[in-house]
């Protein structure tokens, strides 16, 4: 029984004040050796801030941290690493210009007299990568060239590269597809078997149930529940997190076949980007949500980018019968893309939340190029309420928002003005349960208002639950297309893994 062991880590009364926001307001956390301790909370609850104080990246304004019974001062990342705390941060903390191996051993390079020993580093790196089930990533690859999932794997490998007593994972599964999560869990189990403790942050409650031992729930920077057993009923946990009951997560679909005969918003014919995907053809009707299921790396993002005109591709892309020529024309034709990597592809980090939200539809607020800032701000404010972006301050630099809230802002950009077709790539990445339900509701509502939606998600339940029709992409080919209700999770898994399996 875990509670006999004395705790490895005890954080008590942690307070962290940011200009304008009290991110942590007396948080307690207690982690036992060899357990997987899950940290739950809404977007902006303070999870990342808490683990950053634990990693020495932030200095808490108050509170004590005890490790193995001794009180410790985590003056900086080095201190934390020395004490055997290693961290996988939510925002990928990799150096694009460096190779995979260099990134993994950054700060504790394999070297003698300051001279790096590349061969050894590469050997060790591929060792770690194989252990994570990704032996195929060459250690010499430049990290910048990896898709998000690959980057996530690398930062996990880095965390493993220190022999740590405590590993903190901030939403490691957010960038991972379903099958990769199993993989991650296997690693986690190996670690805990060796007595390593793991602090695990995720917004996917089914994961908690599968891997977690105990759960701590944060709300508005305070601890609302410490060390619950992981099998606490979901409803209970959710209501602890959100302070409300989230009923049926996925909104009701329209009656089957209701889309037959409705006008086609999007028609794609023989779309091909050599080496990434080939001969993709499909259509999206008004009011229809079409989901793309597939493995990470199967090319779904690229398909979206190609449809959006952001990627050179052969084949036809027609919106309301008019061809898409480049992004600007796509936007003019009423398309909107919420891209996969919010930091790299969507956000102006230095700019305010409002300006980030209205960037897509600037023209709406301009008369002869002159901005009507009043209505701009009003629109932004409306979206902030709609999606519950916290803190609800349009003027705040978006980089100071929590990951999930940033993601909401990315979506809000295409909700300010009515689009014909929304392209959503991993729209709920890092968004909490409650907000997720809200997002689903918003998306469905838009669809019912006649907007077409093309959805990419690595969470199969999300695709099945939200989409009307599902396309399964494998190795850049469209291998299956059918009504969502004719599919279940296992069927989809079989479809997307066929061939690649074993």
């Amino acid at each position, binding site marked *: 029984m875990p509670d006999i062991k004395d705790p490895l880590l005890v954080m008590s009364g942690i307070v962290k004040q940011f200009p304008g926001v009290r991110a942590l307001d007396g948080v307690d956390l207690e982690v036992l050796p060899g357990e997987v301790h899950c940290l739950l909370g809404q977007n902006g609850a303070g999870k990342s801030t808490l683990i950053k104080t634990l990693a020495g990246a932030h200095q808490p304004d108050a509170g004590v941290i005890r490790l193995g019974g001794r009180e410790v001062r985590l003056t900086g990342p080095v201190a934390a690493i020395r004490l055997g705390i290693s961290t996988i941060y939510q925002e990928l903390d990799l150096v694009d210009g460096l190779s995979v191996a260099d990134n993994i051993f950054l700060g504790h390079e394999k070297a003698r007299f300051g001279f790096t020993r590349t061969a050894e580093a590469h050997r060790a790196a591929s060792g770690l990568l194989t252990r994570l089930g990704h032996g195929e990533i060459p250690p010499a690859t430049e990290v910048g060239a990896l898709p998000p999932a690959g980057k996530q794997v690398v930062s996990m490998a880095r965390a493993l590269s220190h022999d740590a007593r405590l590993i903190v994972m901030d939403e490691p599964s957010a960038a991972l597809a379903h099958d990769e999560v199993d993989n991650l869990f296997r690693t986690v189990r190996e670690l805990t078997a060796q007595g390593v403790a793991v602090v695990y942050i995720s917004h996917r409650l089914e994961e908690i149930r599968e891997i977690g031992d105990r759960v701590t729930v944060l709300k508005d920077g305070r601890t609302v529940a410490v060390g619950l057993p992981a099998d606490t009923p979901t409803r209970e946990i959710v209501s602890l997190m959100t302070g409300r009951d989230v009923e049926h997560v996925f909104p009701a679909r329209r009656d089957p076949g209701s889309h037959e005969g409705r006008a086609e918003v999007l028609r794609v014919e023989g779309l091909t980007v050599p080496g990434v995907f080939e001969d993709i053809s499909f259509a999206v009707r008004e009011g229809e949500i079409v989901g793309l299921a597939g493995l990470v790396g199967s090319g779904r993002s690229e398909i979206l980018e190609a449809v959006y005109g952001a990627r050179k591709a052969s084949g036809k892309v027609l919106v309301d019968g008019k061809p898409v020529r480049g992004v*600007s024309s796509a936007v003019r034709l009423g398309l909107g893309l919420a891209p996969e990597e919010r930091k790299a592809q969507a956000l102006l*980090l230095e700019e305010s939340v409002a300006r980030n939200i209205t960037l897509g539809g600037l023209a709406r607020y301009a008369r002869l190029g002159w901005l009507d800032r009043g209505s701009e701000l009003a629109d932004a404010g409306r979206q902030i309420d709609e999606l519950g972006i916290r803190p609800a301050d349009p003027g705040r630099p978006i980089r100071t928002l929590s990951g999930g809230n940033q993601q909401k802002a990315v979506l809000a950009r295409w909700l300010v003005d009515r689009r014909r077709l929304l392209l959503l790539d991993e729209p709920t990445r890092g968004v909490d349960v409650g907000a997720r339900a809200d997002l689903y509701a918003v998306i469905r509502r838009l669809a019912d208002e006649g907007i077409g939606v093309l959805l990419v998600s690595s969470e199969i339940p999300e695709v099945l639950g939200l989409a009307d029709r599902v396309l399964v992409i494998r190795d850049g080919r469209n291998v299956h297309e059918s009504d969502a209700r004719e599919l279940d999770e296992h069927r989809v898994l079989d479809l997307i893994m066929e061939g690649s399996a074993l």
Partner: protein
Amino acid sequence: MNDTRTPPVGKLPAPVRTLRDRGGLRHLGLVGALVLLCLVGLVTRPDTFATSSNLVTLLALASTIGVITVGMTFVIIGGGIDLSVGSVMALASVWATTVATQSYGPWVMALCALLVGTATGAVSGLLISYGKMVPFIATLAMMAAASGLAQRLSDRRTQLVAPENDAIVALSTTRVLGLPILVYIFAAVVAAGWVLLNRTTFGRRTYAVGGNAEAARLAGIDVRKHTVLLYALSGLCCGIAALVIMARTTAGSSTHGYLYELDAIAAVIIGGTLLTGGRGTIIGSILGLLVFTVITNLFILNGLDTSDQLIAKGLIIVAAVLLQQRTANTS
């Protein structure tokens, strides 16, 4: 949605410092530095420094680079850099003062200067956006080419503004309400720049392109077209600056604007604009420029010799920036 939604995080959703007032703070620092310098001036040269004529002098001196600085601010906020401003200005001034051009009278001369500037700017822009050249290299090339062309055109001679075109020189000699016309030109350019940057979609897009070009592209902004416009704008400013310098020196010359790029960039950066783009203000740049102008003015009023001037300049810059940081942090 339902009112059971959680309230904003933390206790104090109180006044949050937004970008805007952070800018204010940043400027507070520069203004402080400026004030200090002026105090020094008042103490060391009570007789001359605060005189109206000296203030006019200061503004007149600032106006040439000032105009260029406005364009440079746009380019740098847009994530680029323009090393060619000095020589483009020279080229514009030379082209506008060739015998041929002068024969058409002052208006054509002015028009010529603006056109030459804008055109060369646009060329740099095209090289950068469509030629995919690094701004630094593209504008460096333009810098060389433009000053070479200026020397060819002028045969390396100082081309005086002909008496019949004195209208140009009048910009500096005739005064309205005690200020030479060129100071008003300067003011107008700054005002226009401020409006363009803060009140129009063009300005907003400039921040977006500089802050995250990929995001801007995916948000439907034609990044490449915008880039061309940015450098064309910078070129236009060089053209205007050429007019100003022609007015002040009564001549066009291939030696005009030598090393202006450094001064302009320095003013922009010290004004708080990030060299990496995406952030910055016109006001900051102008304040930065004034700091530099006042420094030089002080030195000469106090008859410092060059070497001491340089040393002092270095120290003052450091002091100013550190002061700036203090104010920004303590608030």
